[in-house]
């Protein structure tokens, strides 16, 4: 039913897109003829559309069994066929998959891709943090730089989709799900306005606490009781913002029904809270410690929200609260040190396997702004070295993030009908020695070039 609804709504769009793709195909075809002698010249940096068949490869579908010697057909931007011995459409460009493996593109649900080019001391390149504490209307999709060098560097390591998250303040703004390809933010967008990012107030106590959440706390408390009090005050503040938005929306509804009521002046920020307040879209809370995560769960329950945890060091400890309130976790702490000296050395490596065992819905993310997002597979692999099965490690950066981001109907596995975000490798995609041989984003074959390959080419043979 849901699907039908989407189809009817988007029928026009689909027609337009496929028409465009056909047009692109034509243009590229003519390009091919003209530039046939010039390696790669036919490819612009957003790749080329076409019908492709990867033949005789190991297909790691993620959602189902791995096919040892199979074919994947890519057509009209979608996965059109998966299996052993399936028919190949005439005119399809064949890719010999012998010795190669096919994976769904990886998804990192905790980046700030495109929002900051160089974070340190190049302020002009940073659009990460809006000023003020309450920025519900700030939208990452409006700040994402589609031509950031990070995008190409990241995708040629097999990452096709990310969540880009703004930060700072109490309510930071709205995160966007984007594919790592496109000349405009709209071309990249998978979900333009996905979730609202809230830095959930933490108990900041002694030394330098972690998480960096909270706002306007006026420094850190020196006494635990005081720290708890400050946290509670901040949570109350947060609730007040939500209650204000509720009241505002009630006033709007009332006015809509009865025009004799006073007209409520539009508040751009409270207005922006509506879909999150109503539980239509998720709220992403940064939280690390068990007590803070339980605090988030309580807040989500009290306010009847759809919640996601970003960070989640000790999420496994609060599994009961998370499951009860349907809260999933974007885990960003593989490349992080345990906080307490007496924590086991592998405390944060093990956390994903503990979440898995406790039945918490989670995915693994780099939590990196941009440059190191390409390390996503190794974050998952390390979790695989410490308790998580290899299969779940792979899922934690493919199908699981797709589920957390609510796009599992479109991506995250190799299944017919899903968007063709596909990576072809010469080995296990989670291994640091593995090379990417081909990749496709929304069915476009992406050139395996980046700022880095260009610099490499410029200097590799200098004598």
């Amino acid at each position: 039913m849901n699907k039908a609804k989407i189809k009817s709504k988007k029928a026009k769009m689909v027609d337009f897109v496929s028409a465009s793709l056909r047009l692109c195909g034509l243009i590229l075809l003519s390009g091919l003829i003209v530039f046939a002698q010039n390696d790669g010249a036919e490819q612009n940096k957003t790749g080329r559309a076409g019908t492709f068949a990867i033949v005789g490869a190991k297909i790691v579908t993620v959602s189902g069994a791995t096919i040892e010697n199979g074919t994947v057909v890519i057509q009209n931007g979608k996965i059109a066929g998966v299996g052993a011995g399936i028919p190949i459409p005439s005119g399809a460009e064949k890719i010999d998959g012998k010795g190669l493996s096919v994976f769904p593109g990886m998804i990192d649900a905790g980046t700030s891709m495109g929002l900051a080019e160089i974070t340190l001391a190049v302020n002009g390149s940073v659009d990460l943090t809006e000023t003020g504490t309450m920025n519900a209307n700030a939208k990452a999709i409006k700040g994402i730089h589609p031509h950031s060098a990070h995008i190409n560097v990241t995708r040629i390591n097999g990452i096709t989709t990310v969540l880009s998250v703004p930060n700072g303040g109490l309510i930071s703004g709205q995160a966007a799900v984007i594919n790592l390809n496109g000349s405009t933010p709209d071309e990249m967008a998978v979900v333009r306005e996905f979730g609202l990012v809230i830095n959930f107030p933490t108990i900041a106590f002694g030394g330098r606490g972690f998480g960096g959440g909270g706002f306007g706390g006026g420094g850190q408390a020196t006494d635990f009781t005081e720290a708890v009090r400050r946290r509670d005050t901040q949570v109350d503040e947060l609730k007040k913002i939500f209650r204000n938005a509720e009241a505002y929306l009630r006033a709007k509804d009332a006015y809509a029904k009865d025009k004799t009521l006073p007209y409520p002046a539009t508040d751009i920020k409270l207005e922006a809270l509506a879909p999150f307040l109503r539980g239509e879209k998720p709220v992403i809370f940064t939280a690390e410690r068990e007590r803070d995560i339980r605090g988030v769960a309580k807040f989500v329950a009290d306010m009847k929200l759809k919640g996601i945890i970003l960070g989640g060091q000790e999420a496994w400890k609060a599994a009961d609260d998370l499951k009860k309130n349907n809260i999933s976790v974007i885990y960003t702490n593989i490349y992080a040190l345990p906080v307490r000296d007496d924590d086991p050395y592998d405390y944060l490596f093990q956390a994903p396997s503990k979440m898995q065992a406790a039945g918490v819905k989670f995915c693994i993310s780099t939590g990196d702004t941009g440059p190191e997002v390409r390390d996503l597979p190794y974050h998952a692999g390390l979790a695989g070295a410490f308790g998580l099965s290899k299969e779940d490690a792979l899922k934690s950066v493919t199908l699981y993030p797709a589920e957390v981001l609510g796009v599992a109907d479109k991506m995250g596995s190799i299944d017919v009908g899903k968007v063709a975000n596909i990576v072809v490798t010469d080995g296990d995609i989670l291994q640091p020695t593995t090379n990417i041989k081909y990749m496709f984003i929304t069915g476009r074959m992406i050139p395996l070039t980046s700022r880095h390959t260009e610099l490499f080419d410029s200097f590799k043979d200098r004598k």
Partner: protein
Amino acid sequence: MRKAIVFLLLIAITSILPTFALAQAKIDVLVKNGTPNTWFKDSVANNDVLIKNATVMTAVKGTLENTDILIQNGKIAKIGKGLTAPAGVRTIDATGKYVTPGIIDCHSHSMLDAINEGAFSVTSMTRTRDMLNPTDITIYRALAGGVTSANLLHGSANSIGGQNTTVKFKWGHPVEDYPIPDAPPGIKFAMGENVRQTTQSPQPGRALRYPRTRQGTIETDRDAFLRARDYKQAWDDFKAGKTKVQPRKDLELEPIVEILEGKRLVHAHSYRSDEMLNLLLLADEFGFRVATLQHGLEAYKIAPEIAKHGTGVSIFTDSWGYKLEAYDAIPWNAYILWKNGVVVSINSDSDERMRRLNLDAAKVEKYGGVPEQDALQMITLNPAKQLGIDKRTGSIEVGKDGDIVIWTAHPFSVYSRVETTMIEGEVFFDRAMDSQMRLDTANERETLEKLDVNRAPGTGGGPPRIPAEKRRGERDEAEYGDGGNR
């Protein structure tokens, strides 16, 4: 005797509060229950050990299958097949496991309670040796990642920074055991954004420190070397009897004279290729060799020049983009330098990254196809060469120190884990031992948390005394993306 020392080590690891009563109780528990690894339980009075039937990645002579390594008196005594343990030597069965030399991190600030003396542009009189904290938990975590030795460097706030310390991570030993006695002394230099204090803006009443440009930075170096040359001349004249008055000892210039005399290694933090060239030209002018360019993000642009100078480069395998001078860094840096014959090492400069240097080496295979052994050398033998300790460590060869890591799988596999890390045959990390210790630590924590003094406020206890979450010294280069002085 040996047993007692090992127990003390255990206690050092597990005890947050060094209470003797608790310590005694822990010893009792361990004596009673033993630990999962029997060699420990039946530990003998020395660190002699025979590692049986491993896949040994020697880092110099390829990979040897089904091979045994005998370590006696801290040194590798024999490498071969079918070795038998002499009397009193314990045996570790490493069937199905991989063995590599201990990893050497050529750029670390682990153990340092302070990293930057930033008040002057030349702080060559300062020494990281004076700052070593042997209780820093990052040491243990590094051992759990297979790191046995590290170059503990001063920060990068100065044109010429402080003196380094090359250590082995002998966790649980007194601090005196950490510095490698015969490691040549070194010193930190720095260029670029950190030195010119890029992130600092003028404050009322506080003058900006010279230098503020790369032009000023290299002149600061030149000035220091000119002064050191004069200083040396003054002493030479005095020693030759040409002058009667003994010059005043100058703690700033002494180490710089040692550089001129080839007795002290220069480890120069640098990012841009032009600033590296500035230093190499200065080295030519004053007749010394730069031991390593540290970080060297753009070293690949001038690989032939670096090779000609015989200078080593110690890099991040693929970090980039965190500041402007890191924007041209590429993951093929190691490959291009290697191809030009430069001795390359891969460092962490981070207590976190230090734990996964094996994966950083693996990436060198990916970017450029550097052969496996050459990639492994970048975290073992090459940093040893750069630090002047390759006679004793950095590869698995007879006569070298028994600095060994046992892995559950190929160390370049993301799924591999360190099973055991030993230095000179002594075990400093062991996964089975760790499993036991974490249970004890958890029990101890639970006990402590129940004490009146630690009860939550309002539940009848005294005033709360909850320790700070983590000791945080200044972390010069170590922090990612948070404006750290990297």
